[in-house]
């Protein structure tokens, strides 16, 4: 057997990293479909790290929930649109991936652009459809040999009612949206303020957020997507 067919430790390491990339694709896909089905409880249990310290979830202009219990409370217990909500349809696709697995194979980072739509019921009115585009910045870690979400940050690009373009809705905020920076009534307060969010506005100059990950060796060499971004 020549050198090009020999199974070396380097080959196995490289292969493992590429398997890891594919596992991450599947994991974030799974997360998206569970979220769409309103199965946020299954999403947390099946896709998120359950034992690791420092689990965090940052949602758009709301801020950051830190720790499994706080995330569960916000995202499952107080989910304003749980599974079984008639007229609910939420689909956040995952496209344009940039994924890096750490050299030590223990963590990974990925970003995605997410064209999506959201239709949700309104009080005393029929459900309203919206286009909802955003981005994801996600850190992952391996827990018991499986990849899990560690920090997940959802960034708003725009959310706009179907019959209003995002330029107009950035100026004339729809009445049924929560006040900017406020969670939906009934949801728990966040643990930390927004680290970064840049929805469309007339004066917004688009920046490189979340930054696509660069190759890295160990977690100590990088920062998380729910940490305040480094100054440019």
């Amino acid at each position, binding site marked *: 057997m020549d050198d090009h067919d020999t199974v070396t430790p380097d080959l196995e390491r490289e292969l493992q990293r590429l398997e890891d990339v594919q596992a991450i*694709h599947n994991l974030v896909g*799974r997360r998206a*479909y569970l979220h769409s089905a309103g199965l946020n409880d299954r999403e947390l249990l099946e896709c998120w790290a359950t034992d690791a310290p420092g689990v965090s979830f940052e949602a758009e202009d709301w801020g950051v929930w830190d720790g499994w219990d706080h995330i569960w409370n916000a995202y499952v217990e107080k989910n304003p649109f749980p599974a079984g909500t008639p007229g609910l*349809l939420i*689909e956040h*696709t*995952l496209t344009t991936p940039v994924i890096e697995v750490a050299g030590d194979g223990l963590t990974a980072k990925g970003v995605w652009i997410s064209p999506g739509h959201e*239709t949700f019921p309104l009080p005393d009115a*029929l459900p309203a459809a919206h286009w909802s585009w955003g981005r994801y910045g996600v850190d992952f870690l391996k827990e018991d040999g499986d990849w899990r979400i560690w920090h997940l940050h959802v960034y708003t690009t725009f959310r706009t009612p179907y*019959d209003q373009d995002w330029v107009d809705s950035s100026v004339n905020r729809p009445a049924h949206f929560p006040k900017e920076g406020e969670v939906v009534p009934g949801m728990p307060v966040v643990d930390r303020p927004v680290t970064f969010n840049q929805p469309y506005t007339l004066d917004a100059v688009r920046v490189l957020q979340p930054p696509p990950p660069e190759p890295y060796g160990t977690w100590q060499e990088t920062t998380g997507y729910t940490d305040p971004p480094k100054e440019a």
Partner: protein
Amino acid sequence: MSDNAELTTEQKLQKVLDIHEVQNVMSRHAYYHGLGKNAEELEAIWVKETPEPTFAQNQGYFVGYESINYYYGELCRKMQRANLDLLRKNYPELDESDDNLGVGTLIMHPLTTSIIEIADDGKTAKGMWYSPGQVTEIMPPDHKPIAHWIWEKYGVDFIRENGLWKIWHMHVYTDFFTPVGESWADLTADAPMGVGGPPVEMPRPDIEEETYKVYSHTQLPQDLPRMPEPYRTFSETFSY
């Protein structure tokens, strides 16, 4: 249930390669279908020998080569001819020629949000995708092109035939099909999809079954299609 740890390095290497090749096959479906080249697509990337291929949509299953070739292949051509005739009512300068089949039509079903699993035995695969698409087709009553947004999900089984990955079972789950400028939230449960209807008579599915429901105010979020899970061999998993 798959146990990746039991696989050899060779098998693992092949699996990761296969994931890429399955994505390529699925993407080719999108490019063929987008141009109305359904017959060419069937020839190039669908099974030819494996029993019981299926093509399914919300309203049921077309089963077997003859049925799929007709519904997905021949009917596409018939619709293109019928659409050309309709469009020529408004644009008589268009020749009634095969070169003009597909005129005024634009179909794009992008593929995103993949979950792909290759069986441990390397013989079959399963994939799921979101497809945020658009369909622009000639529609009655005005016989002009109407642009629509169409959001769907795909659940697809693949199988190796003569060493190549082929589509075996394709199931399309449509969430909404709505003219651009109109909201799918205005749809009721019994509203027909899109504007008008197809210009040719459509056969009924071989197995009529409501496999999925389009959006309506009363529709609950649907946990479908089933997500692929790691598996060892096809007999241990479900079929789309």
